[in-house]
């Protein structure tokens, strides 16, 4: 009989209780357990012939939370599309994982199982990349939520393999419009306040840790006003020998870093529920960046001395998750009284579950402990031995001689019941555009360039230190005045490796457009992958060596329509990965992003997928920026333009609905990207910029005002669907896979050779040239000028939109 059964003072009676009673208990304690999960827990403890303890129930709830177990992606789904019904056993395994396995890339060193994905970077080094979401905490307390989001993802990078050194932070946000004038429910922050707080939180944590924040983006839509999305990413570099980790029975469980407090309780279960006014204040934390920097420095020093065998971060669920995961294959015995505390009045379960920041857990051979203590003491960083890993297959937790947890690891990690959910997808979108008022091309361009989803992010970017560590080769703001919109950042990480003669770099790009998802999440996913890859290609990264990360943020998966859309998006990711022959290496999902609005009606976010991509830039000295470099150069458009204005910015400003959403052909897109990369490596490309929101007109305008040169474009020369007869379609269509490229006249034939026999499906045509006069002038299909705008005025509209609202 277990010790817990003998000393039952911490018992948390559940045996014999009805589902209604259990739901009430769960709601009171923010446990977010379903009826089926309660049933499985009851059955388990019935076989043990005892009641669980409070700490055990809390441990199970944290471990089984959506945040930790990704139940939506791993549970069976009965999917209905029209008259076809099929069962998906495991959405994650059948889409993201299956596609990654099918493309078989030997340079993928660690996929899905660790705290981040890891790919080889040269022969000796590896890059670890992770993007996390911190949505619910940021909605409640924007500054603290975003800051601890950064802190959390940095710890993921410290906790991958034996630890990587963070060399880049990325941050992507989705907010309600900052000029939102409508009502908000009690307790909700105005989107402007959320934006200011989130940016300040990311700024303060990243800057204080000395990690450059150089990638990301912002999307505005009023449906995010109650549920902002905060995606925090970090890239780290590590030696390839440090990718593998191992816990051995007999290793000591060592906690390092911050002390444990009451802060952060119920973070995991809280993020697995709809956001409401009853959120616990303990779910919010204030980060301590300097503490985490100490942990970082000490940990990497200890790694290089090989003083520990495994490491992970204390994230959601605190010690319960970290020690539970490390000891999942063997067992662990913990003595909680050894944990350093912030306050002395914590209950046992609070110490065990607290999500206090800046803590890591290590598996340490007893012989290495003394040396490890010396390394951490040198950085002023606390260290405590909490117990040891065992061979019992059990998670045993004792506090002052009192056993508070005695759980079978198998039940804890494999006992979660798999409940089938219903998913339905119906395509209700009209293929033919309708409504709205047509505008002249110039008027539309002026409006689009000052639109919140296009305008300059300088107000945000300038708050971040994107230069620290001295390796930011291609910066987020580019051009002659360092204020134009870059496609992706390029980082030279060798200040960290010490290989000062190695010019290899890496680039990070992103793709996100929830407006396409409103029409069809399948094509949204393909477009997001395509956008991330073409952004990488534009700066000189090798698209054939790219690796992807997926971050799904969705409303309640208990709504069959929402789940149907999620299935479409996941299947889009699968087909994109296969089509581009590009693996997913990591990802994260955040569900239940919906809240009751001011009228008490559920307001779900639009289904949102952020795709992040990382790829090597073989020689950073050949990286390319997006600004025009001089007059008289040829402009080539790579990729075909189709009548694909569905979900476009042009339709949004016209108030038009319907139309074809942009559709990706991965094979021909990849041919174009590869050919362009080959041309870049031979120095045949002066500048390149991808066509995304606003299409060709907006792309050319941005390249022009960033380089302070104008351009002449002829729409009749655009590679296109021959059925297009509208100048506006050619100017503003958002067909994917297209890049505008500037080439010196003497290099034109050499440039075109790269698009020869090996890349027949890529379409590339000379569509114009750069000029000294800073205007954009476009000749329409009928042969007369259809657009002529001053780049100076366009730039002013682009630059002033956000500061005008934020002050």
């Amino acid at each position: 009989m277990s010790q817990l059964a003998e000393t039952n003072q911490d018992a948390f009676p559940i045996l014999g209780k009805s589902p209604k009673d259990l739901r009430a208990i769960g709601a009171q304690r923010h446990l977010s357990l379903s009826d089926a999960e309660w049933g499985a827990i009851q059955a388990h403890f019935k076989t043990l012939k005892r009641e669980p303890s409070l700490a055990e129930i809390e441990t199970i709830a944290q471990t089984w939370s959506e945040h930790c177990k990704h139940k939506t992606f791993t549970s069976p789904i009965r999917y209905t599309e029209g008259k076809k019904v099929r069962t998906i056993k495991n959405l994650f395994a059948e889409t993201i994982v299956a596609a990654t396995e099918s493309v078989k890339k030997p340079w993928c060193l660690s996929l899905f199982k660790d705290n981040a994905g890891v790919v080889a970077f040269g022969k000796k080094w590896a890059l670890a990349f992770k993007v996390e979401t911190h949505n619910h905490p940021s909605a409640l307390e924007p500054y603290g939520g975003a800051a601890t989001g950064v802190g959390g993802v940095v710890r993921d990078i410290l906790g991958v393999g034996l630890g990587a050194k963070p060399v880049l932070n990325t941050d992507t946000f989705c907010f309600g419009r900052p000029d939102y004038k409508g009502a908000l429910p009690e307790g909700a922050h105005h989107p402007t306040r959320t934006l200011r707080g989130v940016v300040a939180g990311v700024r303060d944590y990243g800057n204080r840790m000395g990690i450059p924040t150089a990638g990301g983006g912002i999307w505005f839509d009023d449906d995010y006003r109650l549920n902002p999305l905060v995606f925090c990413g970090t890239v780290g570099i590590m030696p390839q020998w440090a990718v593998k980790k191992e816990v051995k029975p007999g290793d000591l469980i060592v906690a390092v870093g911050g002390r444990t407090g009451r802060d952060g309780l119920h973070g995991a279960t809280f993020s697995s529920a709809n956001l409401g006014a009853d959120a616990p204040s303990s779910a919010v934390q204030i980060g301590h960046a300097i503490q985490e920097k100490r942990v970082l420095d000490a940990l990497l020093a200890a790694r290089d001395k090989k003083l520990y065998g495994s490491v992970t971060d204390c994230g959601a669920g605190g010690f319960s998750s970290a020690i539970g995961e490390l000891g999942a294959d063997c067992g662990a015995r913990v003595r909680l009284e050894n944990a350093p505390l912030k306050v002395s009045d914590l209950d046992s379960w609070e110490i065990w579950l607290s999500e206090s920041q800046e803590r890591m857990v290590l598996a340490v051979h007893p012989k290495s402990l003394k040396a490890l203590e010396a390394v951490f003491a040198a950085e002023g960083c606390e260290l405590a031995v909490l117990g040891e890993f065992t061979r019992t297959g059990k998670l045993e937790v004792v506090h002052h001689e009192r056993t508070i947890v005695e759980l079978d690891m198998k039940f804890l990690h494999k006992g979660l019941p798999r409940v089938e959910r219903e998913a339905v997808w119906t395509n209700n979108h009209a293929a033919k555009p309708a409504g709205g008022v047509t505008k002249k091309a110039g008027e539309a361009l002026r409006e689009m360039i000052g639109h919140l989803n296009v305008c300059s992010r300088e107000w945000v970017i300038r708050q971040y230190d994107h230069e620290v560590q001295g390796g930011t080769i291609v910066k987020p703001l580019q051009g002659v005045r360092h204020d134009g919109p870059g496609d992706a950042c390029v980082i030279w990480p060798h200040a960290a490796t010490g290989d000062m003669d190695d010019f290899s770099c890496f680039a990070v790009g992103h793709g996100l457009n929830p407006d396409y998802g409103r029409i069809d999440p399948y094509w949204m996913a393909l477009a997001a992958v395509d956008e991330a890859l073409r952004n990488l290609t534009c700066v000189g990264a090798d698209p054939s060596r790219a690796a992807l990360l997926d971050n799904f943020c969705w409303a309640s998966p208990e709504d069959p329509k929402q789940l149907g859309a999620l299935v479409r998006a996941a299947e889009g990711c699968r087909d994109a990965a296969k089509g581009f022959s590009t693996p997913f290496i990591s990802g994260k999902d955040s569900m239940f992003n919906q809240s009751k609005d001011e009228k008490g009606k559920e307001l779900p976010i639009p289904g949102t997928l952020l795709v992040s991509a990382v790829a090597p830039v073989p020689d950073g000295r050949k990286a390319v920026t997006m600004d025009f470099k001089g007059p008289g150069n040829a402009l080539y458009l790579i990729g075909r333009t189709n009548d694909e204005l569905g979900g476009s910015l042009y339709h949004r400003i016209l108030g038009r609905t319907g139309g074809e959403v942009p559709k990706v052909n991965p094979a021909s897109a990849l041919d174009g990207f590869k050919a362009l990369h080959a041309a870049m490596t031979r120095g045949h490309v002066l500048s390149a910029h991808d066509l995304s929101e606003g299409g060709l007109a907006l792309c050319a305008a941005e390249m022009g005002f960033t380089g302070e040169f104008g351009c002449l474009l002829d729409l009749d020369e655009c590679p296109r669907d021959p059925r297009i007869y509208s100048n506006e379609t050619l100017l503003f269509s958002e067909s994917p896979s297209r890049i505008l490229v500037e080439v010196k006249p003497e290099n034109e034939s050499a440039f075109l050779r790269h698009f020869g026999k090996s890349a027949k499906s890529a379409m590339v045509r000379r569509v114009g040239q750069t000029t000294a006069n800073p205007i954009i002038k476009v000749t329409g299909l009928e042969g007369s000028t259809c657009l002529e705008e001053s780049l100076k005025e366009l730039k002013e509209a682009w630059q002033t939109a956000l500061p005008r609202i934020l002050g």
Partner: protein
Amino acid sequence: MSIKIQAANVHLIEVKLRTEFNDAEGAAAFALLREQGLSALKEVRTGRLYEVTGSLTANQAHQAGKDLLCDAVTQEFRLVPPSPAPMNGMNFWRVEVWLKPTVSDPVGATVAEAIAEGGLQRPTSARCGMLYLLNGRAVKAQVEKAVAKSLANPLIHRVVVTEAHP
């Protein structure tokens, strides 16, 4: 045997920019509060508050304020007396924004460490707060509402609004 319990000393150290320096944080707070309807506001100045609890004497707290918490070139500091400030109509308001006790205070923790490293007795706790001095006519309820919507988050902050001297 009787046990004599020593009551802990609590010192409130206030650090502000000298008035001759431009207060950018104050200007930002001014704009935010006006957005929230405090249209009669004329100026906002800011400062930092440190509540240090432990066995430090007033002289030692003064020393910590002078040597550790205040930049003598641009800032001034004082120990705030425990008695309430006298009333002065409704033209000047003192707003203190503190993290709730359940929320971690990394700055406060660093201050406690630094005091100990400076050779003084280690405080049992140190908490850091934000001070806003508002110049302009308003009523208390208006100030409290505007602060809760702009400078503080009721979920994690405790706000104290009092009338103050100019």
